[in-house]
């Protein structure tokens, strides 16, 4: 059995009396592609935000297991610490560094893997110089993997919408995560782009060995990609299992179709 990367136990998030997520449990194993679905406002993004440290969970435990098998409880850790533990994410409403070029966006993703400090930057010793050369090289490679190299020197905000979504993925990949959290990666893409995205995500998992958790509304993409699915409704985890199991789960059908 493969190693569990992310373990969420009995987790709740309360915003001023409103239970956005209520006693949810979830676990992700290495090498999986897992989807988190649910109607709008079900608490999916809130769960993402708690896992990545944007919010601190109200109750429960979230732990991340490092490749060496050490488990770290992440409740209350800052987002940058969680990124260093090997979690990286994209945002539902695109949050690129808009004044920078596409390449620079990816270079920033390399931040946790680099070491140069202020003095290194100023004196630019040979180590720093090598590091800088490698950053450009590595970042370009990541752009190439996602077919974005033609945009390398373009301002991130001037990219087409689909490319911006891909650039977010590229930027997250640059942090060399073990688990990549994608928040509605296909939102706003046309069917052609969505099909390509399907391939891209599979490639990321297969070639890079990155485990993937995604929130998505496009059911055909979810069904084709994911090996397991969790369903959130009104903050409660109402179902989980393989795509087939979830599809036939009466609670899920009820949640999606109403009564």
């Amino acid at each position: 059995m493969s190693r569990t990367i992310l373990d969420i136990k009995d987790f709740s998030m309360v915003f001023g009396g409103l239970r956005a997520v209520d006693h949810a449990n979830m676990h992700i194993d290495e090498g999986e592609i897992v989807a988190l679905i649910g109607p709008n406002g079900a608490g999916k993004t809130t769960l993402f935000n708690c896992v990545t440290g944007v919010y601190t969970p109200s109750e429960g435990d979230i732990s991340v297991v490092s490749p060496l098998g050490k488990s770290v409880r992440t409740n209350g850790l800052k987002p940058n610490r969680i990124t260093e533990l090997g979690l990286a994410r994209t945002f539902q409403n695109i949050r690129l560094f808009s004044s920078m070029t596409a390449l620079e966006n990816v270079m920033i993703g390399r931040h946790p893997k680099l070491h140069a400090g202020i003095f290194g930057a100023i004196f630019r010793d040979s180590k720093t110089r090598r590091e800088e050369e490698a950053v450009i090289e590595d970042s370009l490679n990541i752009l190439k993997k996602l077919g974005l190299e033609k945009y390398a020197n373009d301002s991130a905000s001037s990219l087409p919408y689909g490319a911006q979504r891909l650039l977010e993925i590229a930027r997250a990949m640059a942090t060399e995560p073990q688990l990549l959290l994608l928040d509605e990666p296909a939102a706003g893409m046309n069917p052609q782009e969505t099909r390509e995205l399907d391939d891209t995500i599979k490639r990321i998992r297969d070639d890079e060995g990155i485990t993937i958790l995604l929130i998505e509304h496009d059911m055909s993409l979810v069904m084709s990609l994911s090996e397991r699915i969790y369903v959130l409704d009104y903050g409660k985890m109402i179902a989980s299992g393989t795509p087939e199991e979830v599809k036939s789960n009466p609670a899920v059908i009820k949640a999606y179709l109403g009564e």
Partner: protein
Amino acid sequence: MNRLLSEAKKSLITSLWFMVLTFPLLVIKVNTRDNTVVWRWMNLLWVAIGAFGLSWIWRRMLERREKGNTRIQSSAWREKVTVFASNRKFQISGLSTLALVVVLFPFLVKFYQVGIVTSALMFVILGLGLNIVIGYGGLLHLGYAAFYAVGAYSYGLMYLYWGLPFWVALPFGAVSGALFGLVIGFPVLRLRGDYLAIVTLAFGEIIRLLLENLSGFTKGPEGIAQIPRPAFFTKLSLQGATTYLYFIAIALVLLAIFVIKRLEDSRVGRALEAMRDDEIAAQAMGIDLTKAKLTTFALGAVWAGMVGVVLAGKTTYINPGSFTLMESVMILVAVVLGGTGSIPGVILGAFLVTLIPEYFRALADYRMLMFGVALVVMSIFRPQGIIPRVRKRYTVGGGKE
């Protein structure tokens, strides 16, 4: 034709509105002691004509801004300049000429001109320092003059109590500037935008008030006088010291440009800019905001600390009155005018802010009004500044173009 008429009508209405608006302040002048009222009706005419014309131009400019015309034009224009400027031969000849002029300058002009240009260069360094905080870190700092004061008083007090010379004070001023940057940085870590602006303003004022009130230690409002000018092995004549200070300022400007360029191009600089663009995304990329903010404040304050020492050495007299909020605002004006985040922009901005009033004394009374207008117009029509930041391009395959 119809369009012209409707435009004229719009301008006419604006003009009338401004006549009403400025009527009491511009037309009437009362003297309650002599019980006289002066009516300055001519002013109303100027307002009418001015408002009519300016509102016409204003609407035109707004329209063009809507269409984004200016952007296309300016980038085409910039393309040409960039091509021109990246010509190797031009770079070499241009830079060497510039270097020659910079070196010969103090020997070619009257020495008070050297003093004035030194003041401008000091402002350039202040602008570059504040630019780290605002342009790269994206943190609106309204108390920057406090770091300037810290530097000046470092030298002033070190001289007063221990008789230490300029060259000892200079690194000390830089370090104490950075330390104060950290001191201010800590409490404001959680604050954003507007809250940050007001708290930095508050800090700036507190430091000035302390300098004013702790008169046993700082000599209070009386200030510290007779601070020696920097010595070059031996005490220099006035002319000599002025020239010397000029070269010190030039050296500091070069150092600042060098350091900032290097930072811009590094992991640290990228982290600061990422924080400016989007704090949440930056954190998600593993950037420690606490560290990034403290770095920003310290790196920005270092320069003000150093220039403060130079100021004390140049004027030989310092008092708290030189480090008011207005001073912070003027540095901000220089940065915004020239181009936030752009090194050549900030240099130009600092020169404009210091040299225009110096060489157009007749306009002295209109100086602040003009700066105000410049801030508003620039914010609306050219927020990126006169010389905007040009982002670096990389050749695909590694290295720079």
